[in-house]
């Protein structure tokens, strides 16, 4: 009789070991690697490791609730699957498999626009499960707006724009092997991402009734972001795994920024509140 999953996997690190066994070198490096020299990755890891807990004792903790609410929907745990490109190299079903898993478990996912099987099929796999669509800008305003419209039509709970990839960074781990992922090589439409700016964000905010997330804001309190993203949620990147050169937000910064996040942070907002009247958890 085959060993059950419960028996095979009893610690989180045991998944790492099995993933390493299942993946070839290039896909493993894609998974564990980061941008440039991976200094940012290590620095962000350090920032999290440099926080300890202060426990309390002699309290009644016999009934603990690990669930939370985001954009008006209940999540079994407030942990989402971040947008990862090329999910299909890790499982043939790609985003649809992730959608199936998060729907089964009861949390949610963010689908990357460069991950298979795309917006429509992933939405079908997710059903009424929590889902967000994340877009890399590879076309003009009409192209972008069409994606927002399609995401709303397919029932995505929010729309996410990645804003820190105006240039694709040098992934030195890959370059050292003279390996470059196919998508990156053929990506001539990247200029649209570089042209994308705050005016486009305003256009989407005004034109669509959907929570809008900006992924990769360097600091939540940059003057421009305060004036222009009042009705958006921010998503700060901490592990620099993707194409971003920069640190988005380190937890060391967050300690100076009360109520700002190293994860996702939403403000009460016109766009967000339309879907989620009670949105902030504090």
């Amino acid at each position: 009789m085959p060993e059950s999953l419960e028996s095979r996997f009893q610690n989180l690190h045991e998944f790492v070991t099995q993933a390493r066994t299942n993946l070839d070198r290039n896909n493993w490096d894609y998974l564990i690697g980061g941008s440039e020299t991976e200094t940012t990755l290590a620095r962000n890891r350090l920032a999290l490791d440099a926080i300890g807990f202060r426990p309390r004792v002699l309290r009644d903790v016999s009934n603990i609730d690990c669930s939370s609410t985001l954009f008006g929907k209940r999540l079994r745990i407030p942990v989402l699957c971040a947008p990862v490109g090329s999910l299909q190299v890790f499982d043939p079903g790609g985003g649809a498999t992730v959608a199936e898993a998060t729907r089964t478990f009861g949390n949610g996912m963010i689908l990357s626009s460069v991950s298979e099987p795309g917006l429509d099929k992933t939405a079908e796999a997710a059903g009424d499960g929590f889902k967000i669509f994340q877009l890399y800008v590879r076309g003009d305003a009409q192209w972008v707006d069409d994606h927002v419209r399609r995401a709303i039509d397919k029932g995505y709970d929010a729309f996410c724009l990645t804003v820190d990839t105006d240039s694709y960074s040098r992934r030195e781990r890959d370059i050292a092997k003279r390996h470059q992922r196919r998508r990156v090589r053929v990506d001539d439409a990247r200029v649209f991402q570089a042209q994308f700016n705050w005016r486009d964000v305003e256009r989407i905010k005004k034109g669509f009734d959907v929570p809008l997330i900006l992924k990769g804001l360097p600091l939540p309190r940059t003057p421009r972001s305060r004036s222009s993203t009042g009705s958006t949620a921010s998503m700060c990147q901490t592990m620099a795994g993707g194409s971003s050169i920069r640190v988005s937000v380190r937890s060391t910064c967050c300690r100076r920024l009360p109520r700002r996040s190293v994860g996702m942070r939403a403000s009460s907002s016109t766009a967000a509140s339309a879907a989620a009247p009670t949105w902030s958890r504090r």
Partner: protein
Amino acid sequence: MVKALILGADAVACGRLYVYGLAAAGAEGMVRLFEILEDEIRICLSLLGVTGYHELDKSYIRPARQVVEPHVHSAFPHLDLPHETY
């Protein structure tokens, strides 16, 4: 995860972690991974002395020296454990 929630996040999006589950055992692997993570979060909240995230604030964290070199897998110091230990 809990550290990020204490720092003010409404939710945390993990990347590599769930892909380890996906690459290890597909959708079922991911579900199993989240079950373990949920258990870890429940234990963490319990030992912090709270019953939900709304009770947390920054008094529940403190600066601390890291105990391992920062690395993509520094959250998994037991990765190198031999299968049989004594």
